[in-house]
């Protein structure tokens, strides 16, 4: 941890520059995804659902769509894409031959993942606003919150990347962790329909559940104590996984 200075900005910037180079391609998913999901689920399926806890179905899933996008943007960046940079392109090796330390390279990747989540969330907001299903101005807080949420998923993803022997074994966390989380984190139906044990388990171990709770309160503009609890959960988990992911990566790369 002691090798961490302002220099993490350099690997971060490298990724930012390449992202901007292909911005047209990169900006499609955050525009298209919410529109497709909203049409299919929000208005298609939602036609059969009157409301969830007094909230129209499209409004109910809108914050979940942002949260899922935040998760995917950083998780897949810091698993597959980071793995490619680390293992195939040897970008990390090239960087640590300069005054940049391995801690800074990894921190740069983590903050880049978080930045990507923030960009995606920022692009989605106007789309959701046009559909009239999110409240302003409280929804604007989604933008800084996406950075924190994104950082959490980056850190978790980087742990998997550090432990994954090949790029194929990264499929396990994608199927076994991301897919169930996508479905059972209070995204498309409220968690309280689940048995109590499942609810508590989900809240204990599924980061997305907490991201959804906070996002939903922000887009609906109704606040409860859950927001604070989830925020504390996310902050603590981010800090823990930030440290672990850097340690694991250092162990893998510095031999």
């Amino acid at each position, binding site marked *: 941890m002691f090798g961490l200075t302002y220099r993490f900005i*350099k690997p971060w*910037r*490298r990724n930012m*520059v*390449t992202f901007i*180079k292909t911005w047209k391609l990169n900006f499609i998913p955050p525009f298209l995804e919410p529109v497709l999901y909203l049409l299919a689920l929000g208005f298609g399926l939602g036609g059969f659902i009157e409301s969830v806890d007094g909230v129209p179905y499209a409004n109910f899933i809108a914050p979940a769509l942002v949260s899922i996008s935040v998760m995917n943007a950083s998780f897949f960046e810091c698993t597959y894409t980071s793995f490619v940079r680390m293992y195939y*392109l*040897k*970008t990390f*090796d*090239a*960087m*640590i*031959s*300069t*005054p*940049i*330390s391995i801690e800074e390279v990894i921190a740069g990747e983590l903050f880049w993942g978080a930045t990507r989540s923030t960009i995606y969330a920022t692009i989605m907001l106007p789309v959701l606003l046009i559909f009239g299903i999110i409240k302003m101005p409280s929804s604007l807080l989604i933008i800084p919150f996406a950075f924190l949420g994104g950082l959490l998923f980056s850190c978790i993803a980087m742990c998997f990347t550090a432990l994954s022997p090949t790029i194929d074994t990264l499929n396990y966390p994608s199927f076994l962790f991301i897919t169930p989380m996508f479905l059972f984190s209070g995204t498309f139906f409220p968690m309280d329909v689940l048995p109590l044990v499942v609810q508590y388990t989900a809240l204990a171990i599924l980061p997305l559940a907490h991201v959804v709770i906070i996002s939903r309160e922000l887009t609906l503009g109704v606040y409860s104590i859950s927001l604070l609890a989830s925020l504390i959960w996310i902050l603590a988990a981010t800090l823990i996984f930030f440290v672990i992911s850097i340690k694991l990566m250092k162990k893998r790369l*510095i*031999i």
Partner: protein
Amino acid sequence: MAVVLEAKNLEKRFKDFVAVNKINFKVKEGEVFGFLGPNGAGKTTTMKIIQCVSPKTSGDLKVFGLDVNEHPREIKQHMGVVPQMDNLDPDFSVIENLVQYSRYFDIPIEEAKKRANDLVNYVQLNDKKESSIDKLSGGMKRRLVLARAMINNPKLLILDEPTTGLDPQARHLIWEKLKDLSSRGITVILTTHYMEEAARLCDRIVIMDNGQILVEGTPKNLIKKYVGDHIIEAENTIEIKTCLEKNNIEYEVANESVEIYSENVPHITNLILKKCTSSSVTARPATLEDVFLKLTGRKLRE
């Protein structure tokens, strides 16, 4: 002359395996210093410790008078690295690779652009400036990696097998550049499998095997000391071998032939031709390769 790098009892272990076994060496300012050795000898591991990317297990290694474990940033700031495997950034063009890399050294952008352009010229890649990395040949990539290693005006240049896999033209260009850089006072440390390369470029070399340094010296002196001036080769047959033994001539078996290290070529050749029945005898000047094979053996390394 000032000492740029000094290793004392430098050791690197991976669990039970000793990759570098308490080696000692010194590199002086402006020297071209070569590491030779079969695969698995510990050359690349030694390079990685010097580059401050692989921590030493024990012993001492000082670069520019600074300990590699304590001051990696200060050392890396003044070091250029050409790794064994090209690790150029495929998301950037030729010139962008250099400019991007300069950012890692905190070089101001105007200065970086100037240096990048000069270096592209220097390694003769001016026509390829805007090309993507995939479009470059192996030799061009290697030249670009060399240019990249020069972006921070290093005092010390580390090259791990700089010319492996290159065609003769590309290899000669790299040699020319390294000689030029050395003449400008830059200290160069390289590893190579090519004895000719080592003999041409290096002021001093060490030959490593099994993590240890076997010998150290100038290529010329090593040849003289371990092999002599010339080598006489004759067929590897029982008659010749018994004949040589009868005449008290020492020889080494090299697969298809026997080799005799000698200062007195006419004497030995005459003797073999007259006394031993041999269809062919050849004499040639001894090379570094003979020293290498004598010291590290002919067994294949995996």
